[in-house]
């Protein structure tokens, strides 16, 4: 395969050239965008080949470590291909966006941006194409480290460094758990290859199920931390706002999905169907429900635009995990329902990559234009950035699951599967109801986001600090338009992604037992009629619905024109008094206080209102930062300081250490032999 050579050459050359030309911001940016464009083209080509010809594998492994049983061989199946497409598209638009967006950091060197960006993308690609747990871990770490440098891009800012440290420590605790799990599995068969690990698990299910459960729980912790699952994923709200917006889009759009990829690969491809799949299905669904509740409720009280979006990432990952968990739990009971739930989860992964990246780009555009992320200080931006306003509206509709946009389909499938599945396992009905409830909370949160930034008229103070020009530069808008188009198309033509993802199930645990896709989703070309229980359990024909809605809107428009009313522009009426816009603006911090008061005992601290100060009861127990991560770091620092005292700077002392070390080694060797 020639493609891999072009890919490696692009990554290496791109990294070097962007680093060397970093003094010229334009040139470095252009090379960065060009490299990512080539990488995206390669990814789309590979994915196209996989979708048309079936899984592709590289003939020879690139690297082999026989002593530990690890092998770097590249294989792309349908699951990997879907993730490759996502990585390609989001990275491309994120990088294109960054080309002009990086103007807002005139004093920061680009040498710390584009090279790391390209390596970060390469790391993510590595994670989804390897067939070996050892190199999976290697690329996983590579991805984490490069993204760490992108998160702490503004290295002078204490808060950002703090956020970066939290990200670094939290994800590494997760990764360590994953590594321990991997090594425990490897010890069973002496190889890291996915196929051998599957054999190991098959043996352990019979022989030592408890040990296997522990291993799976470790993986759950590792993948969950990366994905942003609630108690362990709280690095997101700090790290995502810290990074430049293009990178935030990639972090939230694709990087946290690597955790989901891990879940899919482990539970749907490696773990044989057993009691463990059922148990972990319920556990994952429960964690998903907790994440979507806690994440979204916490988002409701945020007024930093990107922090709000990051909390929504926790919430939306909750939806994905709920779908996955439902899929796992029903694998034995009702394979069709299980397949639909899993497809809904993968569909939501795709949708979330699109609308969440778009939202981060929109928040970035607002930051680029106004220099602030505080929603309380924004307002009336429609008059200066109409394109961004419309794109934000599209993305908000998508994430809130309003038909005919893309979020609706995946959430609709998740509601259907959880509630109809819940007839057998009632707890899933509860999960489904929470998901429905949270969907309207999401809508509320984005209504606040949209209306506080774009609604009303522009205040004088804000108007004075705007960056000149209409809206934002075209290359930034282009990325937003493209992602918004994807949001609409994915909502109108659900068959395309469903058809592309369906072969995933043939390669996974489901095997060949599933009926063809037409039997699951009905035979109509225009829409989906899922068959979950006995007969059809629901219906949604997006194109029909879209046309009907458009027709009805036209009727409404015609009716409103019937009277041929004259039109006149008037100022806002404030009971006869004359006020400045800023004096009477209803700000983001004031929204929803009576409702939020009901959840005050549960939500994340750093709240917007004066009324709600104390961290909640539930939160105190789950505050991993305070209970675990920060003490852990403090301990490490203390240990290092103590350890430093042994470095006295006297050669004799070092000689003594060496002698002691050699003696210890000899003792160990004698004991071993």
């Amino acid at each position, binding site marked *: 395969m020639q493609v891999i050579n072009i890919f490696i050459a692009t990554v290496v050359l791109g990294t070097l050239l962007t680093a060397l030309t970093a003094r010229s911001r334009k040139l470095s940016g252009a090379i960065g965008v060009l490299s990512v464009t080539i990488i995206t083209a390669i990814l789309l080509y590979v994915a196209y080949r996989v979708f048309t010809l079936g899984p592709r594998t590289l003939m020879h492994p690139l690297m082999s470590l026989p002593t530990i049983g690890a092998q770097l061989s590249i294989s792309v199946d349908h699951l990997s291909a879907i993730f490759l497409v996502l990585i390609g598209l989001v990275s491309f638009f994120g990088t294109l966006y960054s080309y002009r967006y990086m103007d807002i950091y005139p004093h920061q060197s680009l040498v710390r941006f584009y090279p790391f960006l390209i390596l970060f993308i390469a790391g993510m690609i590595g994670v989804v194409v390897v067939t070996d747990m050892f190199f999976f871990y290697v690329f996983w770490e590579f991805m984490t480290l490069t993204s760490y440098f992108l998160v702490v891009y503004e290295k002078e800012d204490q808060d950002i460094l703090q956020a970066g440290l939290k990200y670094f420590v939290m994800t590494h605790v997760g990764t360590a758990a994953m590594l321990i799990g991997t090594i425990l599995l490897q010890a069973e068969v002496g190889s890291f290859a996915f196929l051998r690990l599957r054999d190991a698990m098959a043996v352990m299910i019979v022989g030592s199920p408890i040990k296997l459960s522990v291993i799976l729980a470790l993986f759950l912790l590792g993948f969950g931390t990366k994905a942003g699952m609630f108690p362990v994923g709280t690095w997101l709200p700090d790290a995502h706002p810290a990074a430049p917006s293009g990178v935030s889009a990639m972090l939230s759009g694709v990087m946290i999905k690597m955790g989901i990829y891990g879940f899919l690969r482990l539970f749907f491809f490696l773990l044989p169907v057993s009691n463990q799949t059922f148990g972990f299905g319920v556990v994952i669904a429960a964690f998903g429900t907790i994440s979507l509740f806690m994440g979204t409720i916490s988002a409701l009280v945020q007024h930093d635009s990107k922090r709000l979006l990051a909390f929504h990432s926790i919430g939306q990952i909750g939806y994905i995990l709920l779908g996955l968990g439902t899929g796992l739990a029903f694998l034995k009971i009702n394979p069709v329902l299980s397949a639909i739930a899993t497809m809904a989860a993968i569909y939501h992964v795709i949708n979330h990559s699109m609308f969440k990246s778009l939202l981060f780009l929109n928040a970035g555009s607002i930051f680029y234009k106004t220099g602030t992320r505080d929603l309380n200080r924004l307002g009336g931006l429609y008059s200066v950035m109409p394109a961004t306003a419309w794109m934000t509206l599209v993305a908000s509709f998508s994430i809130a699951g309003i038909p005919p946009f893309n979020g609706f389909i995946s959430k609709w499938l998740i509601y259907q599967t959880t509630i109809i599945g819940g007839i057998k396992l009632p707890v899933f009905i509860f999960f489904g109801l929470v998901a429905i409830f949270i969907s309207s909370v999401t809508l509320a949160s984005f209504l606040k986001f949209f209306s506080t930034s774009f609604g009303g008229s522009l205040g004088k103070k804000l108007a004075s600090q705007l960056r000149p020009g209409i809206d934002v530069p075209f290359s930034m808008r282009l990325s937003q338009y493209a992602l918004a188009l994807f949001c609409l198309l994915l909502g109108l033509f659900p068959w395309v992604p469903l058809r592309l993802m369906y072969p995933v199930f043939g390669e996974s645990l489901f095997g060949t037992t599933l009926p063809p896709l037409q039997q699951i989703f009905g035979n109509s070309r225009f829409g989906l009629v899922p068959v979950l229980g006995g007969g059809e359990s629901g219906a949604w024909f997006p194109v029909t619905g879209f046309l009907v809605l458009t027709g009805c809107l036209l009727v409404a428009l015609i009716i409103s024109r019937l009277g041929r009313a004259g039109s006149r522009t008037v100022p806002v009426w404030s009971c006869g008094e004359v006020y400045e816009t800023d004096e009477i603006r209803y700000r983001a911090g004031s929204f*929803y206080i009576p409702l939020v008061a009901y959840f005050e005992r549960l939500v994340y601290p750093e709240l917007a209102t004066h009324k709600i100060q104390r961290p909640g009861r539930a939160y105190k127990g789950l505050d991993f930062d305070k209970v675990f991560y920060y003490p852990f770091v403090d301990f490490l620092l203390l240990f290092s300081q103590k350890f430093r005292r042994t470095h006295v700077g006297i050669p004799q002392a070092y000689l003594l250490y060496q002698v002691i070390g050699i003696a210890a080694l000899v003792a160990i060797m004698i004991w071993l032999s």
Partner: protein
Amino acid sequence: MAKTILLALVNLALVILAAPLMEGVIRKLKAVVHSRKGPPLIQPYFDLLKLLGKENLHVAGNPTFSLAPVLTFGSILAAALFTPMGAGAPLGFAGDLIVLIYFLVLASLGIMLGGTATGSPYGSIGTAREMMLGIVVEIIVLSSLIVAVIPTQSFNLSLISNWYHSTGPSLSMIIAAVPFFLILQIQLGKLPFDIPEADQELMGGPFLEASGPKLALYKWGFYAKQIILASLFLEVFIPWPKTGIIPADIAINFLKVLVVIVVVGVIDAVNPRIRVDQAVRYFIMLWAILLFAVSFALIGV
């Protein structure tokens, strides 16, 4: 195909042409309760015609303000096509009850976008209240409908209606009907839950700046929503009697809707407005009732 189109036209005619009559009935009723004479039954038609011709005042430099009423009225019309009104939903094959509920959400979203677009503090406060109530209401609506989904294993409204019609009353459905009925009040913006509009304190909230055709569309949307929600309630929870002859069923449904609207109107006439936090507490209680209904449905009674 012809049947679908005919049914669709009937539904549209009901929500566009017959809806203001219902409002006329409510106004008359309210006047009777207040010992007034009240306007004639067809007064709402005159109001709408007058409003359509009145000057269209434009406040914000923001087109979402003028598009919002179109969005509201348009999505209510679309929702009407997914609602069974006596003889099955015209577009029931293309969208189930979740689709219907979300089209109604889209309608209230239109109101909310219009309310915040102007930057008027009254509009924004009204919008925030509307959204808060929306959050608690939507889950109650769907939870009570899910009680019917559990035995039928389907979200298809016509299927649900036929199932309940043939099996007869069940305990879980009767319990679930109560919260749904109490929710009608808030969905239709009636006392004691007209908190977002709150004429005396917010001067209409989201509708404050809307004038002329915009106000006409908002009002018309509300009238139409009364018919949609009352029909939904009746088709799912009280689907009797049905003759099997489509025109007769539609007529029966229309009369039943009238009864429901009258009850809603009486409650509206005799109640004061409550605060938004009281309302939220009230709905959380309703949701607790629904959990009972869901559990009963799961054990099949």
